[in-house]
């Protein structure tokens, strides 16, 4: 006898439907690496196809869990928060970079198989899992932290709402890599900082409290910096947080051109 009021069932109101999911499988050689960041040998890849019955507002992540938990436990992907704020489950769904937990199945064309691949431009470790270290290396290179000099104030530093609004958009970044791995320049040139690192530099360059803008602009004036951007807007389309990535990159370009020192 249950003492609890049943929590609402989402499946009850919307009919179930069948969906075919094709997952790019990549199996690494099963030898532990030396642990010094040696690249994993190139995995062999294949497509595996699953047909599932899903419900109402189920997301691509729900389909992946159903596959892993009920069909094939070896299917491997990262995930955590499951509502679009942790950035773990960026993947290429029907050829577009998205978060699996933020993509509802019913919003995709279910008459065709849904294809799921790892994000492009980073080494694949296994199935949908890629090596994120090169991505985070670029992030760390732009000095993504407050740089200030002088004596620390006793209370908070003042900042007007207008000053804060200049960089509000780029504070939303969750480092999921959807933008960087949708960028054609990044695909062919892994040295390029990529949109995400530039977004995180922007977040500080336009913060009125920060004094490190000149340094960061110099870093991004590098041959692998902002000038590699070809303004294709892939990054803006891919961002699951709705950040206007291309606009942020343009603002950094303009800041480099108009700087006085």
């Amino acid at each position, binding site marked *: 006898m249950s003492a609890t009021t049943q929590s609402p069932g989402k499946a009850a109101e919307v009919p179930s439907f069948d969906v075919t999911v094709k997952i790019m499988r990549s199996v690494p050689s099963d030898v532990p690496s030396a642990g010094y960041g040696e690249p994993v040998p190139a995995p062999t890849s294949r497509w595996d196809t699953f047909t599932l019955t899903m419900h109402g507002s189920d997301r691509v992540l729900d389909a992946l869990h159903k596959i892993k938990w009920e069909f094939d436990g070896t299917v491997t992907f990262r995930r955590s*928060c499951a509502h679009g704020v942790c950035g773990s489950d960026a993947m290429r769904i029907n050829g577009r970079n998205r978060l699996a937990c933020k993509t509802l199945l019913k919003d995709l064309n279910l008459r065709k198989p849904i294809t799921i691949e790892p994000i492009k431009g980073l080494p694949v470790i296994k199935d949908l899992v890629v090596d994120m270290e090169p991505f985070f290396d670029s992030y760390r290179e732009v000095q993504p932290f407050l740089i200030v000099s002088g004596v620390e104030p006793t209370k908070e530093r003042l900042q007007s709402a207008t000053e804060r609004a200049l960089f509000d958009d780029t504070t939303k970044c969750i480092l999921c890599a959807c933008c960087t791995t949708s960028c054609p320049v990044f695909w062919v040139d892994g040295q390029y900082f990529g949109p995400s690192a530039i977004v995180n530099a922007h977040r500080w360059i336009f913060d009125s409290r920060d004094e490190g803008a000149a340094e960061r602009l110099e870093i991004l004036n590098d041959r692998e910096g902002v000038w590699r951007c070809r303004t294709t807007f892939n990054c803006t389309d891919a961002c699951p947080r709705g950040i206007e990535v291309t606009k942020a990159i343009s603002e950094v370009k303009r800041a480099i051109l108009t700087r006085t020192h």
Partner: protein
Amino acid sequence: MQTHQYDVMIVGAGGAGMRAALESSVRTRTAVISKLYPTRSHTGAAQGGMCAALANVEEDNWEWHTFDTVKGGDYLVDQDAAEIMAKEAIDAVLDLEKMGLPFNRTPEGRIDQRRFGGHTRNHGEAAVRRSCYAADRTGHMILQTLYQQCVKNDVAFFNEFYVLDLLVDHDLAAGDPGEDVNVLGVVAYELATGEIHVFRAKSVVFASGGAGRMFKTTSNAHTLTGDGIAVAYRRGLPIEDMEFFQFHPTGLAGLGILLSEAARGEGGILRNADGERFMERYAPTIKDLAPRDIVARSMANEVREGRGCGPHKDYVHLDLTHLEPAHIDAKLPDITEFARTYLGVEPYTQPVPVYPTAHYLMGGIPTNVDGEVLRNNTDVVKGLYAAGECACVSVHGSNRLGTNSLLDINVFGRRAGIAAASYAVGADWIELDDDDDPAAAVVAQLDAIRSREDGERPGELRRALAETMDANAQVFRTEDSLTQALADVRELAARYREVCVQDKSQAFNTDLLEAVELGFMLDLAEVVVLGSLLRKESRGGHFREDYPKRDDDGFMRHTMAYRRPLSDDGSVGDATGPFAVSSAADDHRVVIGSKPVTQTRYQPMERKY
């Protein structure tokens, strides 16, 4: 197997872990182990704010904040700890601002503040603006800011490493007591390679987060499986107040995704099927801004009495339609997007379906105010610390106030980091016994699961665990429902011993790790249910329909649960009165005692809002 050596090892890279790391790493050689990349941690999902009596927008002081915290926790709060938290809150917020956190601002450019559930002016007169915030993504900003500072300070991280065992020099779970019990390190599993790593340390700080995934409807990440708490418990350390789980009122109906209390702080109203603002009946003074336990119970009660909304009358409405869209966009952008994305509801014009969702574990690894982990009511494990949701200080008592978790991780993460580093600097290394392989237990556990050719898959057991916890140990509990839950959890634990995974490989074997996580959750769920069974009263987040009143004479104590061998005589801790429970499962015994609540200036009163 690889062996590493650090003075301080921090387990977990959410808010508490990284705040500890920032203190410890400038004092001594420190590393952080995290099962996720640090920016994936669930601190990033916190929304509404972090309370501190800055008094930037109206009169406030830390004593009022202390009182609200104590009353909010239904007087099970240790009042000395709550006072420290409320006092240090002010510097904790200012520290974050000085690290660059982009708080919302007042017209004068100072940190803006808003109302939040249970936070009041002058001991309950009216809601007060105390929560410092950055839109509805305050946790995201805290997590990013702390990680940025870790990058700046070059903190060492071992990302995607799972800590599966704690090394101490006396096996308390096997009944080996010691005059002194010392921490030796932790054993971790590297996800990318499947390798085992032994991390030797003088100090270990657990900051490994909560365990919400034992419930089906939860706001918690899939990775919140109680690992750190279970690891300590399996080594014989007590875990405190595990029956107190917070159900957040406003989860997206059917999904459990969190919609911040800030929605109500900014003026949102809960309504039933008749459109009635029902919280006026349950909490006449502060209405929709009553503490979470009260709001969640009121909502569940509306549904139970037939006033729920929707075709199945199984949720209530969160109404924001009277707020200006521009105000919603400025203050609540993320949660309104969740409503659009996941339910297809437009909050400008439509009410949002909501229902309580398992959100926060008030209990955990018992510590003192410096984060030192207790091994009984008075003695600590030398060199072992805990902070954040995995710890129980206890500043939250039986019900945490909104925003006090972001505060807890900053205040007690910092204190634990300082204490762990100070201890390590003065302590000598303790040699491991040459005959012992420190990783043996972990290797045996993993090999047993991986090598089993036949058996049940973990997915089925996990689903059954979550379903029985939701059905029988959620907002409303009874002797019958909890007895059922205990039987279910123990049956699942027996089946778990024969669990089998399909992925037998070394690299990135998440199938295997999910099975391990399930084992942690089963161990903790047993304690949650046993604590709920023995606590024949209703207090904070724990509501017994068969005992609807708070009983201070019988139960004004913390529950302390210990895992012991079947042969144990059942006399641990302060096992008196209703807390003297020794419950045998088929391969171990859960022995429960109790610990007194620290009261300083506030006498328990009836809790009215």
